[in-house]
């Protein structure tokens, strides 16, 4: 499990001062501790269940879990969901009922009502963790029972173990461990295919696929795929690029399959996207000239698109509450490509290795890991930033205090990766600022 660092381990570093880092970090990092105001990993189900259309997510948890998912994103109003909760009750806790038998019965009922399910995730929660319900074993048992029609995997989205986007990481890690083994005929070190890892908008996947094809990389797959029946294989020949900064466990699981991560910044903004593509190209032995030729026009177009927003955002200060782990790459993009001034960048967890290049590119802003929300609100009110990036629990109260906000969950629900979306990402920050100037009443 990908846990926030224990503050004790970095307690020695002077608050606000740069922390020495293997990658030559341009930013300082410092820890905080107090009440957190973050989603748990279950929230990832909101986009995961839309992405893998024949998968279904069964949370094993409490009524709180069920309520969280249906409320968190206002999904209640949308289409029939492909998720549900097996709600633990007193009988399970008191031992009157055997929790495993109960779970088997719930799964049987679910699969009878939903014959279209191909891949079922049992998703652990705070209560299931605390009562030590072993969902991995249950998944293996149920997988055997319902094979070959349905495959059952397990992961934990519990709030005592994961925050927000770490749910996607845990889910993808479970998938990674379960991928078909790639045929190991070639030499293990020769790259034989590129895997792009992380949930992306479909239009973005299509753009990336075109770009890699134009570069000459032949076998490009995306994980997760749109259907559980189209899982990519993985093996020593697999090279993978992380599309998101929060995929620590997934990367580890892929590495355990022999796949190799291509270190790179993240494909946010023109700079990030170019470096990300170039890293892959290098791995596949493609010349820098070819990279420049293929990416040049799109990069140039993206820079032109950004110019409009740079005039709106240049010099504006931005303050990040910890939320999605996207904070560092996005702060880097806002600072370097739009001239914004990150005042404080808080993130729920900082993966120093995966973020090494990002941190190196950051201006000297304090990066804060973990959270004490009341103290941070005090700092925010004092700093009065031009725009605050925060979760939905904080956004409207800050707006009511006259502080412009950008709600961070939108960063997960909007196509923001790649060249063509760089300006869209900028626009997400420009829009609340523009709005405040437009509204007269």
């Amino acid at each position: 499990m990908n846990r926030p660092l224990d503050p004790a381990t970095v307690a020695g570093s002077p608050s606000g001062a740069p922390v020495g880092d293997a990658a030559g970090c341009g930013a300082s990092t410092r820890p905080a501790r107090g009440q957190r105001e973050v989603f748990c990993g279950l929230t990832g189900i909101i986009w995961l269940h839309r992405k893998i259309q024949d998968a279904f997510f069964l949370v094993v948890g409490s009524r709180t879990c069920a309520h969280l998912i249906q409320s968190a994103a206002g999904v209640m109003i949308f289409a029939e969901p492909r998720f549900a909760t097996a709600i633990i009750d007193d009988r399970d806790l008191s031992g009157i009922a055997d929790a495993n038998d109960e779970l088997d019965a719930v799964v049987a009922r679910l699969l009878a009502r939903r014959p279209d399910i191909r891949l079922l995730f049992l998703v652990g929660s705070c209560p299931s963790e605390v009562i030590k319900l072993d969902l991995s074993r249950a998944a293996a048992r149920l997988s055997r029972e319902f094979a070959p029609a349905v495959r059952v995997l397990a992961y934990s989205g519990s709030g005592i173990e994961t925050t927000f986007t770490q749910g996607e990481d845990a889910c993808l890690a479970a998938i990674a461990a379960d991928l078909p083994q790639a045929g190991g005929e070639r030499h293990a070190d020769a790259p034989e295919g590129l895997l792009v890892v992380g949930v992306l908008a479909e239009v973005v996947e299509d753009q990336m696929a075109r770009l890699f094809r134009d570069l000459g990389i032949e076998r490009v797959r995306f994980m997760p795929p749109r259907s559980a029946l189209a899982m990519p294989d993985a093996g020593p020949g697999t090279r993978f690029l992380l599309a998101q900064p929060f995929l620590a466990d997934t990367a580890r699981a892929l590495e355990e399959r022999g796949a190799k991560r291509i270190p790179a910044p993240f494909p946010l903004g023109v700079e990030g996207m170019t470096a990300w593509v170039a890293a892959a190209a290098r791995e596949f032995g493609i010349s820098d000239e070819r990279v420049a030729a293929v990416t040049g026009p799109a990069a140039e177009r993206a820079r032109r698109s950004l110019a409009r927003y740079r005039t709106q955002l240049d010099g504006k200060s931005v303050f990040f509450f910890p939320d999605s782990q996207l904070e560092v790459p996005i702060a880097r993009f806002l600072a370097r490509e739009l001239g914004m001034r990150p005042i404080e960048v808080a993130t729920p967890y900082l993966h120093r290795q995966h973020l090494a290049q990002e941190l190196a590119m950051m201006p000297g802003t304090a990066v804060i890991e973990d959270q004490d929300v009341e103290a941070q609100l005090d700092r925010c009110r004092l700093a009065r930033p031009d725009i605050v990036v925060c979760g939905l629990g904080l956004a409207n109260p800050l707006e009511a205090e006259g502080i412009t906000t950008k709600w961070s969950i939108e960063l997960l629900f909007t196509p923001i990766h790649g060249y063509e979306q760089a300006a869209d990402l900028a626009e997400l920050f420009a829009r609340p600022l523009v709005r405040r100037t437009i509204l007269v009443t």
Partner: protein
Amino acid sequence: MKLTIWTYEAPPHVGAMRIATAMEGVHYVLHAPQGDTYADLLFTMIERLPKRPPVTYTTFQARDLGSDTAELFKNAMRDAYERFRPQVMLVGASCTAELLQDDPAGLAQALGLPIPIVPLELPSYQRKENWGASETFFQLVRALARPREAREKAAGERRPSCNLLGPTALGFRHRDDVREITGLLAELGIAVNVTAPLGASAQDLMRLGEADFNVLMYPEIADQAARHLERHLGQPYTRTVPIGVGATRDFIAEAAALAGIDPTDMLSDERSRLPWYAKSVDSTYLTGKRVFIFGDATHAIATARIAAEELGFSVVGLGAYNREFARDVRAAASKYGVEALITDDYLEVEERILALQPELVLGTQMERHIAKRAGLPCAVISAPVHVQDFPARYSPQMGFEGANVIFDTFVHPLMMGLEEHLLGMFRDDFEFSDEAAPSHLGGAARQEEEGAALGSPRPDCEKDGAARSVGWSADAERELKKIPFFVRGKARRNTELFAREHGVALITVETLYDAKAHFGR
């Protein structure tokens, strides 16, 4: 002769009926063939009034023509007076009777009835409903309103007072606007002397002069009367129509100034939810949504101000069907950098909307048809009225509660922000198909913007040949389909514009993204 699919306004005599029906003790004798009695159901079925309009029709037939239609009129007039004993009678002719030239005014006067007779000259082949209502109200006011006896302004003793001018029967939310504005003025400390025509008697019109000033609620109906009262009775009147938060605040300031009182208290509180709801982060996605606005001039202008200043939309089209106020609409349109569309031709409005591809249409029941066929969200802002414009619940357009109603009305047809996002992210999801309407509206399917219903009139594409002179490659069409439908129309339009400006004959995926870069989101 003019081809008319829908008419935005009824004939002028229906405007006169709206005045007569709104009032007490007024009876209207209309020289008209039997079919014209249909107009009664406008009041009994659309407005659900529990009484017949106070109108007697002569209902002449073909066999009466050229012989005794004048006699018919006189009988009808006499019978109506005997039966209804009104305080004042209106007389006039509908379109067919106008052709007979029977002179109802002369005939009526000749009867020597012991009450005032107000003859109406409403040229049916030139004028329309609003004009007819305005003229009728003006004639009644001119005939009846008297100056204040003596302007005994024992200040401190009398509360300042005003008249509310313009609300009629069959008016778009007039019933509730009157309640809202009356309450607003009461809070300010201003009494309402007479509300007219709605609920007023002939005696009430005679008392109009007792007020300090007039509130001109609906210029379409009462501008002429208000100007008459200013000129002849020395009553100033308010220019701001209090629709929207900003306009309501301006109106309060204006009314307070006319009444000589201090509005500071009333303006210091926030009394509408609109400003906070518009600031709430779930409204951020409304920013810059391209809206097309069409209605009567008053509502269209007010809507544009709300859209631009209070909701953060971008006004891409603004128009009105009543030429009488074209100048005001043009002035408003120029504020938003658009060309005003002044027309009562439904087909012209349709062409404009299809060419602009707005993200929201704020129009009349007629624009709803256009929007429905084009797959665009739409809300209704103005007459012509439909039975659904007379809801049971309190639904003003004016004042602070009116602003609340308007917020809900304008935002409701739109897909909610998060739903938009998920559609954008996962277009291939079979449950988020392009056919999906906003799920809170029942989630039923939408028509593609290109695919209007079979047999419906199609925009005259041939005329607009330039628009189609660029072609789309198959790849580009496919990429376009990945754009969610609620912005796809705009993307198509922008890309074609871009292609034409840059001499691109065949649109490729690159052209699509070049255009996106050029126009921004």
